[in-house]
């Protein structure tokens, strides 16, 4: 490996840019690949394999035409940003931490966003749009909105929809979702943007309690993260 390649690899990792290091195991020839930064090409076997390896977060070996390539993957850390330090955020932040996510909670209401209610969780009490901009959701970030208050949810949602976050979920009934979609349309977000929002949030497992709802949300986040289409 050249020092230049190592420097670029570390720079990509610091920039939270998903990257694969491809090595020809016989010759030692190497290059970096950012397989999600261009459309999937079914004829490009290395790109396809690198996408799969990054999605599965697991290194892979690829044999093509008598050559043996090793694909090492470097993903940014998984993050979950919860907007709303409400009851449901408590079990959700715990489950997400168990699943390996760095959790941040945004809520300008300091009575809700208190270290007493959320020990050990990164709390951000700026207004949600400024807070979300500061956190900068990337391709390994999930965002869940749970305030039930458009005044807080919508500013965060506007910033999130302009980010490459892999999952965006919003709590609320079908009626609440319809009202949200109408507001977003009025704010200039097209159908493609609006379709990124999962709502009602979570997989339909009949969840009732806050902890059960947290399980259903975490299940949907996991399903999205691990699906090849992500």
């Amino acid at each position, binding site marked *: 490996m050249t020092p230049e390649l190592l420097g670029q690899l570390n720079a990509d990792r610091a920039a939270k840019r998903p990257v694969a290091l491809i090595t020809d195991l016989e010759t030692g020839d190497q290059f970096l690949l950012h397989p999600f930064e261009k459309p999937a090409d079914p004829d490009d076997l290395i790109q396809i394999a690198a996408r799969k390896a990054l999605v599965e977060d697991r290194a892979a070996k690829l044999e093509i035409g008598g050559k043996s390539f090793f694909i090492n993957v470097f993903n940014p850390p*998984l993050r979950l940003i919860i907007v709303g330090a409400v009851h449901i955020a408590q079990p959700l932040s715990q489950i997400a931490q168990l699943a390996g996510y760095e959790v941040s909670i945004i809520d300008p209401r300091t009575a809700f966003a208190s270290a007493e209610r959320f020990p050990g969780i990164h709390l951000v009490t700026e207004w949600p749009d400024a807070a979300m901009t500061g956190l900068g959701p990337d391709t390994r970030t999930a965002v869940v909105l749970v305030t039930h208050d458009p005044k807080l949810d919508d500013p965060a949602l506007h910033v999130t929809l302009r980010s490459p976050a892999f999952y965006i979920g919003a709590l609320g009934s079908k009626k609440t979702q319809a009202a949200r979609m109408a507001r977003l349309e009025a704010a200039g977000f097209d159908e493609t943007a609006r379709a990124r929002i999962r709502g009602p949030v979570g997989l339909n497992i009949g969840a009732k309690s806050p902890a059960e709802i947290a399980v259903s949300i975490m299940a949907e986040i996991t399903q999205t993260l691990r699906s090849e289409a992500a």
Partner: protein
Amino acid sequence: MSDTNADQDILVTAQSWMAAGRRVALATVVSTWGSAPRPTGSQMVVDADGRMMGSVSGGCIEGAVVEQAMAAIDDGKTRLLDFGISDDQAWEVGLACGGKIQIFVEKIGQ
């Protein structure tokens, strides 16, 4: 592998060792069979004096890997090492866990 659970950053360490003028090689687990202790993608950095950080196994083959890494620093050639396979290679070492591991060793730099 994912940076999610990285407790020691091997690649950043490699870069800082280089910056400090040390000659460095990198060892990476590229294949495992059976009950290998470290997943593929796991890495270890080694310098010309045999100092190392990171791991490619539970500790059973690190000594042999360090030797090969130091040789790679000297001659600049990459190496593909198989452990736990019954052959007569000089560096072949059995794995207590019964697994097999393939390690790619490369010098950083020309």
